[in-house]
């Protein structure tokens, strides 16, 4: 019997094609980006995280999306990828 064939309606990005970057063992000597998505009070959370990370000697860089309703601009994503070893994105509401 001929196998029944369907055409894939998806983007064809199987999960296998997008493995996650392994988590760092430790933050020692790494640069951590803090991304504020521009929702109210996200900065409160990130400010505190900034304090805690700095107190542990971790270098911290701050970033902010222009609006939470749209994906981060490509330049911003690239800047974070180039300058940071890890990133924390703060959702809020």
């Amino acid at each position, binding site marked *: 019997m001929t196998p029944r*064939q369907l*055409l894939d309606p*998806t*983007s*064809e990005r199987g999960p296998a094609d997008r493995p996650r970057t392994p988590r760092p063992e430790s933050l020692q000597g790494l640069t951590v980006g803090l991304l504020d998505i521009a929702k109210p009070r996200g900065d409160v959370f990130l400010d505190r995280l900034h304090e805690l990370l700095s107190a542990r000697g971790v270098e911290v860089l701050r970033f902010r999306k222009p609006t939470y*309703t*749209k994906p981060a601009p490509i330049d911003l994503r690239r800047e974070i990828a180039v300058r940071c070893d890890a990133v924390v994105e703060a959702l809020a509401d």
Partner: protein
Amino acid sequence: MVIYASHVGLPDGYAVFVKASCPTCREVAPVLRRLREAGVPVSVYTQDDPSFPSGVEAIDDTDLHRSYEAGVEIVPTLLRVTGGAVAETLQGWLRADWERVTGVPGLGDGLPDHRAGCASRTLDPEVAEMLAVRLGARRLAARRVELGDLEDEAEAMFERGWTDGLPVVPPTPARVLRMLEGTSRHPEEVVAVVPPDLVDCTVEKVAINAVLAGCRPEYLPVVLAAVEAACTDEFNVHGVLATTWSAGPVVIVNGPIAARVGMNSGGNALGQGNRANATIGRALQLVVRNVGGGRPGGVDRATHGNPGKYTFCFAEDEQRSPWEPLAVERGLAPGRSAVTLFAGSGLQPVVDQLSRTPESLARSLAASLQAVAHPKQALAWDALLVVSPEHARVFREGGWSKARLRQELDGLLRRPGAELARGAGGIAEGIPAALADGEVSKFRPGGLLIVHAGGTAGLFSAIIGGWVSGALGSEPVTREVRE
């Protein structure tokens, strides 16, 4: 007739396509023998009987591959091939042309000067379908998903996450090829970059999702325009999807295509039961889900959502409308077809069975519009007002243009900022104090869309509340439908 010259792969010289069941081909058979005798390099391809025409040593094309690739529509067809390309095409028998193209005089002794041919076997309905799948499907780029013998098609598609919760039509190569017949656009053309995964979406991918949704091929141009409009930065379907608010894309169709594909703009236009309305809106949602990767619980974070997120698409009733169509108001030339996308969050019907003057009815509508999002919210939320034929009659008889109605509503929708400020009336929700000076409009300029649709009985209109308006949220977007 389209000849795919570079694909034909025919040797230089002449190629003639014939079938034994065609009387003209049988009459032309001696001509082919004569060309051979004259030393003309002619290859003869026979579509039905490999022994026909006798004495010519025809090439068996009963599987029709050569005929299909050469785009033959009539037999006999004579092609002159030079440098791998088709330089000239003759259909049927026309002595003068055959003599000119082959350079052999005195052809077809005893034949009339002209004899029409027959349809190529490639065009027989059941054959065309088979060929399209076997040969045409090679043009399709999408990954093939093979189902196991014991797999139920409907269940398999649910399991793969392709559906919106309702069953979908299996996107077989034959169905997708038929769907692509609905547009002249190339299957590989990129229609839009679809959020949230920002994936290049081709005409073919849209067609596959249109099949899933249950569309007919003639709906495809409308779906393509809707996908284009949704994926603009202005409409911001990413935000519409991601928001915790109930919004989803509402598709309003204007122009001749609406009637041509059988859309409903009348009774129950915003409800169930019309295939075009139902499946065009659904196809857009499935593109966002399947191509863009936007799914509830993933990037879609809606608190409630709304039933229109399955599908929300209708046509404006332009025929009975006292006003210019929405797309024309938004800059499109009259008589053209278009979609307008609005980020809508559900339907609130408005009853007014007593107003007989436009002044009274406008006040009713304005009072009801105040409730969009929250009665104390202003400027930040758009709305789409769907005026029914019976309400429109009141405005027509009162001589109110759409511009007049809009102007009157603008006035009626202004309220003292002090009433809207946070805390006013014992309600914490409201506009910030900084915006509460003087009078405040309910809607920003351009934030209220007005269309005419619905059944002829019912002194009701309908309000479709919007989402965050403007550059931070969503702008309505109108796109012409290209066929």
